[in-house]
């Protein structure tokens, strides 16, 4: 029972979503919101790894999202579609459905490599100095993209919708729901497995007492490197999914405001809590959409609401706990730690 309850639940959820989309019970708008939820879950859980578990204060998560978004978009557009920038497709477009996950993973790997930009300085510095380094890295990444003209520079890059069309030639199913769902689940599994291993507990040790960790045989530099790279790599995957959901990317959509959104989700959920990050991502996405009719008021109302929430729960929704710590009965159905 315990072994299968979660997989069964996930499969049911996925088929329901895909069915609803396929029979057009939920329209494109609602589908997009659902997709954003999934993508935001990857964003928040991955940032939570660094900010919540490792206790660093990374403020430039959007930079890594940008790298993943651009790398995977460029690859998929060049490989599977005819585009003005790259000419004829390099591979037969029918392969798009199979190639897409690979393209996403390559985007993630590229983002993980960019993660070195902050991982290496983190060996010698932490706290607010590292915060600056992450902000600077965010600026550097955006600015680099703006200065590369072949990928559209400040104007942005598009054509990813055609990749989706190419996939639909293969089978007429709501592909993005499938991919977002699969990669969201994989991301959460990766993070959970990492943090529940003894190796990953070294991350917690670093947050609580880095000196003691190093002296008690934890290779702190390597852990920081690995953790930053997992976090930024998953952010890159989120970026790739985002780019293909929206069909268009622009350097501006990955500025510090986007990083701020990621931060908000992590701290709203509670530092170090995976279920907290997931809940916060869902709540936050819904909040953004539900308040959309308010237009500009929304951007006053949401921060205000968050400030008020934080006054009442100054440790986030979940604190440093998981859902199964709060509702021990859940442990019957799944094992978290």
């Amino acid at each position: 029972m315990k072994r299968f309850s979660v997989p069964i639940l996930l499969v049911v959820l996925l088929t329901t979503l895909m069915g609803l989309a396929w029979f057009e019970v939920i329209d494109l708008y609602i589908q997009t919101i659902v997709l954003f939820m999934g993508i935001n879950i990857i964003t928040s859980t991955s940032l939570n790894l660094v900010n919540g578990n490792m206790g660093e204060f990374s403020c430039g998560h959007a930079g890594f999202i940008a790298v993943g978004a651009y790398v995977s978009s460029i690859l998929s557009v060049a490989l599977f579609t005819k585009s003005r920038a790259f000419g004829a497709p390099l591979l037969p477009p029918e392969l798009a459905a199979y190639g897409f996950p690979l393209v996403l993973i390559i985007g993630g790997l590229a983002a993980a490599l960019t993660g070195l930009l902050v991982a290496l300085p983190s060996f010698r510095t932490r706290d607010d100095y590292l915060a600056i380094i992450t902000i600077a890295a965010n600026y550097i990444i955006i600015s680099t993209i703006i200065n590369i003209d072949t990928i559209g520079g400040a104007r942005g890059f598009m054509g990813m919708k055609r990749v989706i069309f190419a996939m639909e030639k293969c089978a007429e199913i709501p592909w993005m729901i499938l991919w977002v769902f699969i990669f969201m689940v994989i991301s959460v599994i990766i993070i959970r497995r990492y943090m529940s291993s003894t190796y990953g507990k070294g991350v917690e040790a670093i947050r609580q007492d880095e000196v003691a960790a190093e002296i008690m045989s934890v290779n702190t530099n390597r852990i920081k490197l690995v953790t930053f790279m997992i976090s930024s790599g998953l952010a890159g995957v989120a970026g790739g999914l985002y780019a293909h959901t929206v069909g268009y990317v622009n350097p501006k959509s990955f500025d510090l405001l986007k990083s701020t959104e990621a931060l908000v989700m992590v701290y709203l959920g509670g530092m170090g809590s995976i279920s907290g990050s997931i809940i916060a991502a869902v709540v936050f996405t819904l909040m953004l959409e539900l308040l959309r009719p308010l237009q500009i008021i929304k951007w006053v109302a949401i921060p205000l609401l968050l400030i008020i929430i934080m006054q009442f729960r100054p440790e986030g929704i979940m604190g440093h706990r998981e859902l199964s710590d709060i509702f021990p009965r859940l442990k019957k159905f799944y094992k978290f730690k």
Partner: protein
Amino acid sequence: MFDTLLQNILNALQWGSFYSLIALGYTLVYGVLRLINFAHGDIVMVGAYIAFFISSLLLGQYGMPAFLPGWAVLALTIPLTMALTSVVGVTLERIAYRPLRRKGANRLYVVITALMAGLILENGNLLVLGASRKKFPELIEKVVYKFGSTYVTNLKIGVILTAILSFIGLHFIITRTKVGMAMRAISYDKFAVPLMGIPIDTVIVFTFVLGSSMAGLAGILFALSYPILDPYMGMSIGWKAFIAAVVGGIGDIRGAFAGGFILGIIEISVVAVFPSSYRDLIAFSILLLILTIRPTGLFGVAQTTKI
């Protein structure tokens, strides 16, 4: 060649002045509370708007009879703006930051609150005043001095001098007055201060008064130099000033002052050599490099972990 160099140096000093004044506010609050007050850039924006309304009022925009010449308006606007901006800063501390501190929240929750407060200031402004941009009135007549073929405006000189004088004044307050010394004492040791006879909350409020009035001053100077105001004007300059403060060594006002000028100089030099779209890329790469080599900033001292 020499003239453009001189021109660039002046521009660098002018931008350095803006960054320095803002960085000083960041560093003061950080030194006392270990709080990155991410709303600080937006306080600068608020300062610019306050200055706009005060000077417009004094110039007879809102039915007030205009009886003062431009320089007198400026002379009145500066202290009034600094005072009102301080009120905004202190209000923020009272209603948003202090309650969280009292509850013993992780300090990063206070930082997130500051980020949110910044968003509220930006978008609240847009909401209340609408999207039309405001044009800051020209309060003093522009005088252009000519040295060889280099042109210098009185405004530029004024900005640079004001920044330097403010720093000296601030340095005096911090090192010579009782409350200034209490500020420094807090940054070393939170518990030593009540012994000096000054309540901690008073010191914190004073810190916000100082920091926000510097932000107000920066807002006026910026608006005088670049007279188009918009609600998001404080965002990017605020982030950059924070980076400048850290490169200088956050918590140390000399560091903030120097860091601001370093950032100004780097940015202007980059633009002098490369297309301006490379400004952020190269400037931030250089700053990243500085921080990699000196992880605690220029004036910051490495914290020794005692075990």
